[in-house]
């Protein structure tokens, strides 16, 4: 207990030191909404992070028997909340509103895609995964397809997915630290990244699930309170802000006048902007195809993300797996029903050209500021965004580093590794990953939601087909799985190479074609179906799955007796 207090204290000192170092760095940026160091939000942020650590330690001190046992003692509602907080990251909290603020109706493909995926997960996979009885996504693939090579390859892909996912999160953390401390973006990414890394290393093995419930409560409260305040202040139907903001959308479309002013003294009114709400409006540069492809890629990506799938192994029963998905989806929807509200208010409150160009990814916070919401509540909102990113990043870094230490280091490089050296390998992997993510986040390649969408597309065309076919077709064998994952990985490589070359000004043949049809945010729309076809064709041309695996699949997973 003494040692725990000591560690919590040392982290507190570390965190305060970083924040203190940051104070002189407040090179105030021009925009009136940015300003210098914000004391109250900084204190709220500090308190929130501390709360997570304290809850983590208390949970550990109660003597839970490790990570999995902790999950198994929690109710369906509780594990639903854990699923929701594990799921909702800076992309949900900041990025979705950002993309709607910029591209209007197109942004709704993210809202629908990131919720509808749970239907796929529940209908096709959740309880079956639980009944298969493994602990991680790589375990499932290694066992179902009886191939340790495939297990290692999947582990590499899982690490890469975690990496891409984290890049988006670090971008969000950077933006919020920038806002709170008034530093430039690069310094903020480094400071924020260091804090999150310190947090993960110190709290990595704490009682994760209970912590996630606390994180969910904080982030949903932080997100909903300003929504009530905004609708109340501007005289919309505030009892259910999710319905109340409808008139805001109509006011934007028609350019209606309102009697209110923003915190900067501007009228709350825009010129008529039907492009904000009309589907695939030409002015947004997004087409019908892109809406559908993005939505579909995000849905199958949801059902293929290792850190999402892994949640189902830790519930006590298959029926709990199903109910916790349902609760999880409901808790997720509480935020997703509300996110478009921030985009709409953001549009109408920042309509005056004097406001200038705002960073879309911070629009949630700017909106609250423009709406003259109390600074303490705005600070809480920013802290909520950081905690959304923290909960996801810590989950991803832990998942990525354990994939490295269990599936790659232990199985490939050093089968005799002791538990201690495995943990050391995991620690090093965590630090290496965090540093790599930080560097890539500094490049600011795309919006937060888009970077995260990339991770979904990769998961959707590599891991999702393996789970889908592995569960529902016993004939799908090792060779078919290899074909499937190679097709997925091949498409990923093409999309990424074109994207990166495009970013650095290298012209490749057919760049326009690939940029449109195999865009990194949604290439899974075609890559996943082709991976499934490859799986079927190659499986049929090669020997059947061994009987013991078919037997396990049929009797344990599907109840054939």
């Amino acid at each position, binding site marked *: 207990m003494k040692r725990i207090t000591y560690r919590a204290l040392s982290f507190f000192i570390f965190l305060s030191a970083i924040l203190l170092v940051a104070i002189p760095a407040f090179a105030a940026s021009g925009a009136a909404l940015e300003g210098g160091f914000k004391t109250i939000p900084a204190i709220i942020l500090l308190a929130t992070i501390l709360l997570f650590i304290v809850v983590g330690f208390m949970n550990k001190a109660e003597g839970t028997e490790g990570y999995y046992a902790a999950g198994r003692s929690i109710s369906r509602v509780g594990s639903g909340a854990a699923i929701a907080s594990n799921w909702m990251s800076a992309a949900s909290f900041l990025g979705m509103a950002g993309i709607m603020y910029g591209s209007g109706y197109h942004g709704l493909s993210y809202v629908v895609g990131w919720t509808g995926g749970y239907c796929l997960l529940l*209908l096709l996979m959740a309880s079956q995964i639980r009944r298969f009885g493994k602990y991680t996504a790589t375990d499932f693939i290694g066992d179902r397809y009886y191939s340790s090579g495939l297990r290692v390859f999947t582990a590499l892909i899982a690490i890469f997915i975690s990496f891409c996912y984290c890049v988006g999160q670090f971008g969000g953390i950077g933006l919020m630290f920038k806002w709170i401390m008034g530093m430039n973006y690069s310094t903020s990414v480094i400071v924020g990244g260091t804090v999150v890394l310190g947090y993960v290393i110190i709290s990595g093995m704490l009682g994760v699930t209970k912590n996630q419930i606390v994180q969910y409560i904080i982030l949903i409260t932080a997100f909903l309170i300003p929504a009530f305040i905004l609708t109340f202040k501007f005289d919309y139907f505030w009892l259910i802000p999710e319905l109340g903001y409808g008139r805001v959308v109509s006011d934007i479309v028609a350019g209606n006048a309102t009697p209110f002013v923003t915190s900067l003294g501007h009228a709350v009114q825009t010129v008529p902007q039907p*492009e904000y709400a009309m589907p695939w409006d030409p002015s947004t540069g997004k087409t019908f195809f892109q809406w559908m492809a993005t939505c579909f890629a995000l849905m199958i990506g949801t059902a293929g993300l290792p850190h999402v799938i892994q949640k189902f192994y830790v519930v006590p029963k298959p*029926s709990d797996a199903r109910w916790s998905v349902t609760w999880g989806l409901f808790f997720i929807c509480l935020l997703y029903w509300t996110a478009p509200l921030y985009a709409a208010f953001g549009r109408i409150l920042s309509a005056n050209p004097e406001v200038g160009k705002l960073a879309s990814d911070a629009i949630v916070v700017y909106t609250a500021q423009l709406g003259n919401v109390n600074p303490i509540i705005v600070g809480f909102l920013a802290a909520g965004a950081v905690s959304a990113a923290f909960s996801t990043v810590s989950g991803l870094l832990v998942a990525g580093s354990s994939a490295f230490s269990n599936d790659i280091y232990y199985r490939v490089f050093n089968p005799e590794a002791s538990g201690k050296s495995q943990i050391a390998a995991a620690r090093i992997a965590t630090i290496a990953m965090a540093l790599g993510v930080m560097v890539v986040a500094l490049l600011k390649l795309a919006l937060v939601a888009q970077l995260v969408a990339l991770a979904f597309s990769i998961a959707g065309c590599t891991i999702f087909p393996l789970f889908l076919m592995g569960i529902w*077709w016993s004939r799908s064998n090792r060779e078919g799985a290899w074909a499937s994952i190679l097709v997925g990985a091949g498409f990923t490589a093409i999309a990424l190479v074109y994207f990166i070359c495009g970013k650095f000004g290298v012209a490749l043949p057919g760049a326009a074609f690939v940029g449109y049809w195999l865009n990194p945010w949604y290439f899974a729309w075609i890559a996943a179906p082709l991976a499934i076809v490859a799986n079927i064709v190659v499986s049929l041309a090669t020997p059947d799955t061994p009987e013991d695996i078919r037997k396990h699949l049929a009797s344990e997973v599907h*109840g054939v007796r």
Partner: protein
Amino acid sequence: MEESKSYNVNFFKPSTPFLKENIRAIVIGLVIWGVVTYGFQILLRIMETPTPEAVYVEFQEIAPKLTDGSASPEEMAKAASFYLAMLGKSAALLQNEQLKVAFTSTAHNALAGAEQQMLLDLAGKAGSGEAMEAGFIHTALGIAENKAMMAVVPFALTAVTPDNLVMYDPATKPLMDKFFIHNQSVLTDSIVFGFPFHYFFTALVTLTIFVLICLWYCGVMDKMMKKHGMESSFE
């Protein structure tokens, strides 16, 4: 051989009564999911007609007169307020010099006498950050009640001289088409709880149906598990 056959699992050929029922439930869920998500968007796509905004239709009638110089001051004022509405749509458009020249030119011609010179003086100061007294422009363009439009004026002006006025540059037409023609239909024009209906359906109803699909499936599966005596064997 007989035995190994019975261990085959195929989504499309369920081998036991439990699997048959399970897969039927899954298919029902998937169909509802697909229709709600993609069916609605396809319907939206089928029903839509590219619809220009009313101000754009009006502007297109005036545009030829702007080119041949036969537009009346009232028509100049209408054109100017159209340009203003366009420039106000996005920060990127506010960087478009052709549009700003067109706005300043039409606003100039909508005014008379000394006010024309006042406008040119104001436009000369554009971008300097000095406060602008643009009340006479608001009155001439008939936007004195519209705060959103008035806010754009200082940003829409750009320095011009009386001999380089360009009222309409045909090169800007594609941009106008892009910003003033929208995919509309009865689905986007009906209002529900203040929302355009399609927006309401996609942003709120779709998500709610997802939750309902999950609730329904969980209920059905719990019953099915009990019926086939499977709940216990997995605990």
